[in-house]
């Protein structure tokens, strides 16, 4: 039980990567990217968790109560903001790819070959 969140996180990371590799639709590729990112949320939040502790808001509980680690919460908040914005940028790129290439299949994007 105690390793489950971390095992799930590792699985999400790799399965998200698989999604990116195997996807034939750029929208799906970008969404798989957010699957990879959710692995990072799981690890961060799992690290900070304490059994029987409350959320780190002391407005209505005594200030010396047992609280969940607040630092990991802040890290996840930052992580979410970064994800949302980069996904937005990527989706805008995908929209433009559809407009310019006429397709969202990565295999149809052939403007770059070395």
């Amino acid at each position, binding site marked *: 039980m105690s390793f489950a969140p971390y095992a799930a*996180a590792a699985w999400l*990371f*790799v399965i998200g*990567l698989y999604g*990116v*590799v*195997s*996807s034939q639709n*750029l929208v799906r*590729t*970008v969404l798989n*990217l957010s699957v*990879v*990112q959710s*692995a*990072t949320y799981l*690890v*961060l939040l799992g*690290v900070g968790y304490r059994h029987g502790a409350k959320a780190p808001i002391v407005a209505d509980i005594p200030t010396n109560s047992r609280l969940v680690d607040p*630092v*990991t919460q802040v*890290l996840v908040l*930052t*992580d979410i903001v*970064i994800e949302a*914005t*980069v996904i937005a*940028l*990527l989706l805008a*790129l*995908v929209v*433009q*790819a559809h407009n*310019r*290439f006429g397709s969202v299949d*990565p*295999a149809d*994007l*052939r*403007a*770059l*070959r*070395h």
Partner: protein
Amino acid sequence: MTHISSLPVVIPFLVAPLLVAFGTRAPRWLEDTAAMIVASSVLVICLLLAVRAGSRPFAYWMGGWRPEHGVAIGISLSIDPVGAGAAAFAALMVLAALTYSLRYFDAVGGLFHALMLLFGAGMVGFCLTGDLFDLVVFFELMSAVAYALTAYRIEERAPIQGAINFAITNSIGGYAMFVAVAMLYARTGALNMAQIGAALDGHHADPLVIVAMVLLLLGFLTKAAAVPLHFWLADAHAVAPVPVCVLFSGVMVELGIYAVARVYWTMFAQTLAPHVDPLRAILVAIGVVTGLLGALMCVLQRHIKRLLAFSTISHVGIFVCGVGLLSVKALAGVAVFIVGHGLVKAALFMVCGVLLHRFRTVDEYDLHGRGREVPVAGLIFLVGGVLLTAPPPFTQFQGKALLESASKDAGYWWLIVVFAVVSAATGGAVLRVAGRVFLGWGPSEGPDPQQARAAEERVDETRDERDHTPPLMLVVPAVLLALTAILGILPGAVPWAVRSAARFADHSAYAAWVLRGAAVSWPPVAPTHVEALDVIVGVLTVAGAVAVAGLGLFGRGLLARAPRSVRAQGRGAVLVLRGLHSGHIGDYIAWWTTGAGLLGGACLVALR
């Protein structure tokens, strides 16, 4: 004096929103002026910080949150000479790129200046910070701005694909780093790098620490474009506007190398001390493969921007070897080499921009002989190509000499050969281009009709063909090349670099001056000097580059005389290699995963 520490990041953060909000309404000269003033002031402040850190490194605690009982609770800018120097270098390149863009773009919105300033702020913050999570945040800032800048030329199709590949690959690198931060935080309860290092000291490096380091390395090496995490770089360079490529190749990629060194020396140096040799071997292996692959792909290109991009990748191989040697002398060598390389590569890209500006193409064969109309540009390109081979006694050579000495010390004397081959190959490719484009030498038809497909992509950043090149576009690269020549031979420059590298690598003192503000003494440094062998190798490298260029220009008959089986095998290998760089994001991430698995496995096995 230390009060100005936050300003190199804050000033661009203040001005960029204004540029975005009023960009469409303000005249171009106002935006240009504002951007130039900001970039200059950031450069000046970073230089001041470098001088101050050179006498005594210091930590600037944001929000006034100083450590309590030796535990860091705020975010620090831990400013030492190498960090401040890297920040100053980044600021210099941003200034150079902005100056060049004054004349390069016909019309550009306020967004370009804002994004460039934010890019600079991200890079400066990345160099100055002493907090691991802050490092990741600024990494992401640098990256997000870079994605937007890559896709800047939205009239073309290719930038979209390039930006997508860039964004997806680098984001995954970023996610790996988040996991690493979580793991290190769980183990040490700290986010400040000095604190983490102090907490890891004295303990055995178990798989958690090793995997955390691997994940951090993956993130930074993705940014640095080490093989097999490198596929995005050529794509991005092919499509990004020239001033942006200047920043990518000149600074951004090198910051990945900086971060690898920073992370190793502040956090892992002591705990991994018993395993220095295997770690060294792994990093050097990555560097060698990157260098050789990059050099080979470089020589095979006919698209000049891609050629320069692969040249950057091959130099990254040298830098990874340098950092991977895990010694003070090698670190100093890499730092000096990076400065020299960045300036030269920037100048070369700027000349490429001149060609683009004038002739609307950067295909080597399409430009055959046309460069004779811009002889000054040709001269700069030629000098740049020679400087790229690290000839004595200039900056890159000084760095290379340090690296060669460090390689010998570590028992890796054969790296000298690798460095020479890489420098000769990439310098030779540039010289070949110079010969073909500016002197009209060599055949005007490509050897392979398949390659002609690459030339189909007409790039057009600045619309019509022109008959006049603004002098500024030639002055800036010339100044950069002059700097490359001068900086390395300034008396005291190399000793300053070695001393700063020693400060950078002084793991035990780092915790002292960051967490306790203690005054720390300079670690002892053995004097270095350039040996005759280094000079000989340097001269031979230049000669080798000339030979490579000559072969590329005039050697087709020679190559045709090789036995048929060799030619067929060579052609087959080249086809496979080029096929791998396919532009398909799935391929890139499959290779990323392979690299990640291999690096992780190697480290776990070798560093027990």
